């Protein structure tokens, strides 16, 4: 055995053909590592296709919790001959390339170890059924890998027993395939590799979950009863998860469901339904991605101007147009902030991981009713569809859902008068009734046309302008209630800051460690909502230079900051990524280091960190 053995710091990547059944084997691998207590992050890099195109699955394993994607791969499990050439290029020097040598290949890398396992031949010898031969190839490589890097076999077997509970035949067949892979490696290959895994205690009180499932649970805990949607990658699994949980947790004593999930004919209809349901007093949401938001534009303006609560989850993907449906981006910031014609502005919530998808998921419904306006939760494909290891979800049974200024039948009898759009309390937020509140009081006419404070049609320009001003006031009122930014002033003497939001946080945290180690002191603020909290403006004003990190071409968050706040625009420096992949820490470190080294003013603003983050 070599003396260079390291534990729990490696990147595994599986290269497969999509539709071949590899996804479940790869997920078993990630879940087994998680259950061994090792911090991991998993990224599924898949095509917009059903069968036959290349697909990859990366697992970053890091007991030191540096979990951003890495450029180089330590162990490549290459099961797709189409992509051998590019896959082997990604392997780090000293790494391992495992392939199916049922057909022998020559690879021209002498700085890595190439391991051949004749997986197709092993399966052909063992299984007669064509489908089984294909499917069990995935479990065979998992078996081989488990011995090579030291994944606990008991953990895998337990996982399989849970997965195939009540299906003994399937369980046995999977165990057999696992054993075939392990036996081949044991008999033919020098194992284990230098880079290995072993049990640790890094996942206490953590769960492994994707953001869409988390947001769906948030909606369930937020009391959502109507979900209307139209299928679109990467948001589809959100409503499907909501329906699954609602069918179980919302079943009433008669066996009926306290929720309605409806697949609409298009996104216009799905948002229209959610608006209709909210207007009628149910908490309702829709879930979509960029193209859907474009289609929903007109309705979003209606909900904004007629002041109807609405929750919209936008799981962002690569744009423009159909763009890259299976890649991640943060490129709907401006589209969502200003969705619809005329003067419109919308509240955005910006979760950075599944835990915040859950939290913002239920809070979004409170904000929607409190501020009587659409709330858009901007997740993305990386958060939404990848499995993350995050703190387990918490729920305080004393949590009181805030239904805002919703007037009941009893309230309205006590009120001397009711005017739907009147600013009674001076915070810009009017009182609201729903249909059938009271036989004699509280009815009004909801419209997208300009209206008086009682909801009557008006073409009076003064009244129209007053209405817009009150809605602006309401928008400003929201600032103090929305999730405040997370600020880390680890370099109090440094005049350099960085702002980010959403899924870039993992890479930024890793990068901050590297930067501080290199003597670059940067204070950090993560935006969690729009309109911006005052502390965002203060942070920018307190620094001479502020990097704005985002995953889009047009620096959309920077533009939103500039257009909404009174800022010195020269101090904002963009760091932009828009290749559709989750960020790496190196990308951030290299960009920041280069900018600082090339600009003496920024260099002068630097002061090393007080503490290592």
């Amino acid at each position: 055995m070599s003396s260079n053995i390291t534990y729990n710091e490696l990147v595994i990547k599986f290269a497969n053909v999509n539709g071949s059944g590899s996804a479940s084997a790869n997920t078993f691998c990630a879940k087994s590592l998680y259950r061994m207590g090792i911090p991991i992050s998993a990224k599924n890099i898949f095509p917009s296709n059903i069968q036959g195109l290349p697909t990859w699955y990366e697992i970053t394993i890091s007991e030191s919790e540096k979990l951003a994607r890495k450029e180089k791969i330590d162990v490549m499990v290459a099961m797709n001959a189409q992509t051998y050439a590019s896959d082997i290029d990604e392997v780090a020097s000293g790494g391992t390339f495992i392939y199916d040598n049922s057909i022998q290949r020559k690879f021209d890398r002498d700085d890595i170890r190439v391991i051949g396992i004749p997986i197709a031949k092993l399966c052909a010898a063992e299984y007669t059924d064509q489908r089984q031969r294909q499917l069990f190839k995935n479990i065979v490589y998992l078996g081989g890998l488990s011995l090579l890097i030291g994944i606990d076999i008991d953990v895998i077997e337990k996982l399989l027993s849970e997965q195939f509970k009540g299906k003994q035949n399937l369980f046995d067949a999977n165990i057999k395939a696992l054993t075939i892979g392990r036996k081949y490696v044991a008999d033919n290959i020098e194992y284990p590799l230098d880079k290995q895994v072993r049990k640790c205690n890094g996942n206490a009180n953590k769960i492994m979950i994707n953001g869409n499932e988390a947001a769906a649970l948030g909606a369930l805990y937020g009391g959502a009863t109507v979900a209307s949607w139209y299928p679109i990658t990467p948001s589809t699994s959100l409503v499907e998860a909501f329906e699954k949980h609602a069918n179980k947790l919302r079943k009433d004593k008669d066996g009926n469901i306290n929720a309605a999930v409806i697949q609409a004919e298009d996104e216009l209809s799905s948002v229209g339904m959610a608006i209709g349901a909210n207007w009628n007093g149910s908490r309702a949401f829709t879930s979509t991605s960029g193209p859907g938001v474009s289609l929903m534009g007109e309705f979003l303006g209606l909900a904004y101007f007629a002041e109807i609560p609405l929750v919209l989850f936008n799981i962002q993907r690569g744009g423009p147009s159909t763009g890259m449906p299976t890649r991640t981006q943060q490129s709907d910031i401006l589209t969502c902030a200003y969705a619809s014609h005329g003067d419109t502005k919308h509240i955005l919530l910006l979760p950075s991981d599944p835990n915040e998808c859950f939290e913002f998921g239920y809070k979004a419904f409170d904000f929607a009713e409190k501020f009587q306006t659409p709330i858009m939760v901007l997740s993305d494909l990386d958060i939404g569809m990848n499995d993350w290891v995050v703190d387990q979800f918490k729920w305080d049974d004393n949590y009181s859902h805030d239904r805002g200024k919703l007037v009941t039948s009893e309230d309205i009898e006590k009120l001397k008068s009711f005017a739907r759009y009147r600013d009674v309390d001076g915070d810009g937020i009017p009182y609201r009734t729903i249909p059938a509140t009271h036989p004699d009081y509280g009815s009004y006419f909801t419209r997208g046309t300009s209206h008086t404070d009682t909801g009557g049609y008006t073409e009076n320009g003064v009244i129209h302008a007053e209405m817009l001003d009150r809605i602006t006031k309401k928008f400003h009122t929201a600032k103090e209630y929305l999730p405040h930014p997370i600020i880390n002033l680890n370099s109090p003497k440094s005049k350099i800051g960085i702002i980010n939001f959403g899924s870039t946080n993992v890479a930024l945290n890793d990068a901050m460690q590297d930067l501080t180690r290199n003597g670059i002191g940067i204070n950090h603020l993560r935006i969690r909502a729009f309109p911006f909290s005052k502390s965002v403006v203060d942070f920018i004003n307190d620094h001479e230079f502020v990097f704005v990190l985002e995953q889009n071409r047009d620096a959309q968050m920077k533009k939103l900051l500039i257009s909404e706040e009174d800022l010195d625009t020269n101090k904002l420096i963009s760091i932009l990524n828009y290749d559709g992949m989750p960020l790496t820490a190196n990308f951030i470190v290299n960009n920041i280091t280069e900018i600082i080294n090339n600009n003496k003013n920024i260099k002068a603003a630097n002061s090393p960190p007080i503490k290592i983050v």
Partner: protein
Amino acid sequence: MTYIKKPIFRHPSLPTNEIGLTYRDYEGVVSTLCAGCGHDSITASIIDACYELSLPAHKIAKLSGIGCSSKTPNYFLNNAHGFNSVHGRMPSVATGANLANRDLVYIGVSGDGDTASIGLGQYCHAIRRQLNLTYICENNGTYGLTKGQFSATNDKDSKNKKGLDNPFGAIDLAIMAIELGAGFVARSFSGDKEQLVPLLKSALQYNGFSFIDVISPCVTFNNHGYSTKSYDYIREHRSLFGELDFIPEEETINTSYAEGETVTIKLHNGNDISFKKLGADHDPTDPHKVLNTLRNNRSDGKVTTGLLYVDPDKSDLHDTLNTSSKPLNSLSMNDLCPGGEELEEINNQFR
């Protein structure tokens, strides 16, 4: 002219309905449509139907899209919540509203532009889902608010006010509704209150999607000599498809029908509608025969009115979705939020 306040004056001797309300209690604000507009007559018929059925107005939700027709929900049922939404999208808003509270009566008012062009998709899908909604299309074959363009229900032979031919064929919304599986389909004429009010009453009592295509002449842009949606044309070319009576449950015992002449159809809520046959082939429960007759009449240049089709046994969207019998908007957060203990279980599913 909504700035003109409608006087709240009730003559003390005004008759009241079963719940003690007068006709005036079902009115809305003053209409701003052109004098003589067919839509105002439809508004009056809706008020009549709701008054006669003794529906509590606040338990009705009235929804619309955009256009002259879609303004009208403001002109009836002041005590009902109304929603003038966006162009062609009333069906989706009504679907959401209905999902939130299954116990209200939903009236959707739309026009031919709103329904047959921009909103055709939503119209079709609301029918497919058997949404419990009374959908009234106030059909004048023209775009009034934008000054007289042809709509998709305008007949190919018809001309506009400037004498130009309509180059495209008409979409027949009633035929479409039957094809798509609507449970209650009727056509009427804004100028025939005697026919329209019983149709509306039956439609409002129908549990499922009921559609009434009401030909409603546009006095300003489509009531000229070459129009096939003018008052004169419709009066001359109507073909009555039976006569309809709405009979409340309590009166059914004392009502006698002449054998062979009427078909009595029981609605879900116990009320009956009686359909007087005008010819041996007129069976409103047989979609194939109905579609045949409608198509034949149409090629003969006739506008068939009356109750065209009814299926008393359709289930509605809530049955299909298996939603709770209590309105979803009446459930408390205690009913809806699974709580902390359950979240522990959920967390365990992700370990």
